[in-house]
């Protein structure tokens, strides 16, 4: 009986692993899917920011670990927050990042994206997927690196670095300052206020 169990398990494990796409494959397929939709969708090209946000919510958000991102941005202040506050913080931070990401992606115009070969061992549980966006003209390509972790639900992104600038740690000082002056609730309030501001859909409208 026991042997049969072990045998069954042994059979199951490789199947479970095989179902998770490799991190670099995952990033590439999601980006390509999103870019294809951006290029095709007439509403998005006309500046429909709501639609871009929806696109990000359905295609991109499921592959991000927002709790971990918020934890990194909060650093030591994470412990000051109650479990409820942590949940609200992660939700508000997620909204802010999704809106930021959709602003950035609305500016996308046919730039070429190159994916670098993944330098990782099979047993690694944290990897960096590197890519480069080549802008038009002679300016240097901009690196976009995805820090990813292996979870039971597949690989999840927990940081994005654009030209070496981390989307997450760049918020650390701002968050720490808010918490120092107005407490965790103060930070939640200012995040919520920021998220209520109207969307900046196109570069020209700021």
């Amino acid at each position: 009986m026991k042997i049969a169990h072990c045998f069954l398990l042994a059979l199951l494990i490789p199947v479970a692993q095989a179902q998770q796409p490799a991190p670099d494959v995952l990033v590439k397929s999601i980006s390509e899917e999103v870019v294809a939709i951006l290029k095709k969708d007439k509403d998005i090209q006309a500046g429909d920011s709501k639609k871009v946000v929806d696109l990000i919510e359905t295609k991109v958000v499921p592959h991000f670990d927002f709790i971990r991102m918020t934890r990194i941005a909060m650093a030591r202040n994470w412990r000051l927050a109650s479990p409820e506050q942590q949940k609200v913080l992660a939700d508000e931070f997620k909204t802010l990042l999704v809106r930021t990401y959709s602003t950035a992606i609305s500016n996308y115009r046919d730039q070429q994206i190159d994916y670098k070969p993944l330098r990782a061992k099979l047993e690694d549980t944290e990897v960096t997927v590197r890519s480069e966006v080549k802008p038009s003209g002679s300016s240097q390509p901009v690196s976009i690196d995805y820090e990813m972790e292996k979870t039971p639900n597949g690989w999840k992104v927990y940081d994005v670095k654009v030209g070496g600038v981390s989307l997450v740690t760049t918020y650390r000082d701002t968050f720490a300052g808010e918490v120092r002056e107005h407490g965790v609730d103060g930070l939640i309030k200012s995040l919520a206020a920021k998220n209520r501001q109207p969307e900046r859909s196109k570069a020209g409208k700021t």
Partner: protein
Amino acid sequence: MAEVKRLCAALLLAGMSAGCATSGGNPADPLEPLNRVVFSFNDAADKAVIKPVARAYRAVLPGIVRTGVSNFFSNLEDIWISVNDVLQGKFQEGIDDLGRVLFNSTFGIAGIFDFASQLGFQKHNEDFGQTLGSWGVGSGAYLVLPILGPSTIRDGFGLLLDTQADLVFKIDGVPVHNSLYGTRAIANRANLLDASSVIEQAALDKYAFVRDAWLQRRRNLVYDGNPPREREDPDDEPTK
């Protein structure tokens, strides 16, 4: 003269009161109160003059012309970039960048076309501040320069030398030199219009966001894209 003094005093005072309102926390930014004043001045100048002109520039000129203008200035920069490659001991890149200049200046018609990039000789990003960094000079305090924007003590010194080596400054005839300088500034700002709209959307506190992004970016550039991981603080990422 007295007026300038009074203005400076007013700026300093404003800086101090701004500092009281938002006590800084970043050890890399001891000059935060003063920096915030210069930052808001720059931001106001950008909103009132620089950004509208850059936007008009982008609206009026077709992409291919704007790329040509950017390429022209970028080609002039490549000379000083190759000097900095060599100063940092990166001889192969120094030769490549000099090759870029020679190739683009001739076949690329005074640098208007960047054929070297298409042939696989990618542009590098170097300046004297990065060279100082690669020699082990720490960045020093964060510094917001009037109009020129984010910098540090080290990069400010670097910029002094970069300016001396700037070919646009060497051109005789003040009107030519000034109009070239202005065109370059506007072309550079136009290239950043998209990025600045992302920052507006992203930042809770624009000053702190720009500072922290800038400091990370410079560190990344000094290490040519592969900075060592910063000392891990056990409290940096609490597990619970």
